[in-house]
């Protein structure tokens, strides 16, 4: 893969939910290029297809029509095996934190690391502690999720996504559960990782202060990218 190849290149992407009569098109001819190391924000009204686009780019849904190239690999018609391998190079931050209730904060973060190649896995506890520290959770590492606040849980989930040094992070309203300061803190961290490690972030958000920090803002409307609204 050439160094100047974009992190993500979407071309002519259409997506439908349901089959036959009940079928409903959620994305219409979406074309989008995301540069490496950038922070791209996806916005648009509810139901406009933001999450659908995110899951297609993140190998969580099969591409039906069109092309999605992620880190130089075509995802359309890729076998499940290859999709799983691709997912290991990504980081996901979900709206719901989805932490394992029986694992401590540190153990939850480690689960994000253990799936990675041996080289990264060796970093182990140290890496987990470091990321948790960056997110202001140094004194909460051995807590079970039940003993953490909503914002703290969300930050553990973010640490889990970041610990394995992902090449692309997909986040769907990751700051919804956070207060403004820690929300901005998280976005600053993502931007910092973009500058220092070339990590690419695609984030769905409605938060106007975050939108101000974005390298680029893409607006979706009824499953189409609003060309006029593309900045950057």
């Amino acid at each position: 893969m050439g160094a100047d190849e974009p992190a993500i290149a979407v071309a002519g992407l259409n997506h439908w939910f349901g089959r036959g009569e009940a079928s409903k098109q959620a994305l219409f001819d979406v074309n989008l290029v995301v540069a490496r190391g950038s922070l791209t924000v996806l916005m648009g009204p509810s139901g406009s297809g933001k999450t659908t686009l995110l899951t297609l780019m993140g190998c969580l849904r099969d591409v039906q029509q069109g092309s999605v190239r992620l880190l130089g690999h075509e995802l359309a018609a890729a076998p499940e095996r290859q999709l799983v391998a691709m997912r290991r190079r990504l980081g996901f931050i979900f709206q719901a934190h989805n932490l394992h209730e029986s694992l401590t904060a540190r153990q939850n973060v480690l689960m994000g690391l253990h799936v990675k190649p041996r080289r990264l896995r060796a970093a182990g506890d140290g890496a987990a502690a470091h990321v948790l520290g960056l997110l202001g959770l140094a004194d909460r590492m051995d807590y079970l999720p039940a003993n953490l606040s909503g914002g703290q849980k969300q930050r553990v989930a973010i640490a889990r996504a970041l610990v394995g040094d992902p090449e692309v992070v997909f986040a769907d309203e990751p700051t919804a559960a956070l207060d403004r300061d820690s929300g901005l803190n998280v976005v600053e961290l993502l931007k910092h990782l973009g500058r220092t490690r070339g990590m690419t972030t695609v984030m769905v958000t409605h938060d106007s202060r975050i939108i101000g920090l974005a390298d680029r803002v893409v607006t979706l409307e009824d499953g189409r990218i609003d060309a006029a609204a593309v900045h950057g």
Partner: protein
Amino acid sequence: MTRILTRLLGRLPIGWLQLTHSRGRLIAALAGVAFANVLVFVQLAILGSMSIATGRPYDFFESGLMISAADADSMTDGSNVARQWLFQALAHPQVTAGAPLFVGNVTLQHAGTTMSLTTFGVDPTQPAFLSPALRPGAELLTLPESGIIDRLTRGLDPQDAAAIGPSWPATLEVRGRTLTVYGSFEGGGGFGVDGFLVVSDQTFLKIVQNRQTGAPDHILLALAPGADADQVAQDLRGMISDRTLRIRSYAQARAEDIAYQQTRRPTGIIFGFGVIIGVLVGLVIVYQVLSTDVADHIHEYATFKAIGYRQRFLLGIVLEEALILAILGAGPGYLIARALIAGMRKATNLPLELGTSTAVAVVVGTAMACALSGALATRRLALADPADLF
């Protein structure tokens, strides 16, 4: 424990952490597994005691071949055979001796208690057909109306019974006659009988009604050293004119009887079913626990999938849980079953035992059953679709 498992699995023992996280569910699951174990252990002990009890009378004799009636499904069942077959069999060059064996159930009184004894009538002049333990008593059996008794007979004090000897005989009342017992041997109660009694064929015919010298229950045949019992049996089946007879090697007769008791008799079938039901109960309980657990954590499992873990990894977690349940449930199950079996043995005098090899087999079986339940429960994991997480 978490540390040991981390070492063992080479990853965080998520299954273990998940199980111990919800204590209530863990305890319920372990109680279920232990209960299934108890069921299986107890039924197996009963089945085992049936085969011991069925095989035991064979220990009292030594024989190469045995001729029995077509309907003789155990040593104590079935019609008579005509003594003339004994003489026909003796014509075979490798049959060196033969003796009739009479079997009947006799109700006797001793010191005010009534007992039902499986009574054998043997030829006291041919002690070679008796087991080494019984052989020394053969001479005493030539005395009229004498016998030797099973000292483990239910209703008999074992110490009193062991003291019985030629100089300290005991007496039994049977149908108005007095039977003098000059010795004892080690038998043990069975299903439906209290113990055993060995008498001479002459005495047998006196204390059991409607039996004749010419019609014993079985014919025992001694073979020349080195003779092939199965070959001789086959020869005899050709020689003896009654083609319905069962002519089998002694060892085969014993094995067939045990198999018959376990697979064809209602009691054997019921206890065999008990084992299967125990296994099913265990399967259902473990399946229930594991599949509820999977359903409760479906989002976490989907997250693992999204992160890039394979289905195999998730399966490993569920199997880990299954095996932990199997192993932790087996201990209490074994202990409870042992206590129950000891109590039953005391109450019934049946040869109920829980052997180590049986126990190990059951624990291994439990682990396999749990793994099967676990594998069934993971089918629900397919529902964990990472695309639904956003």
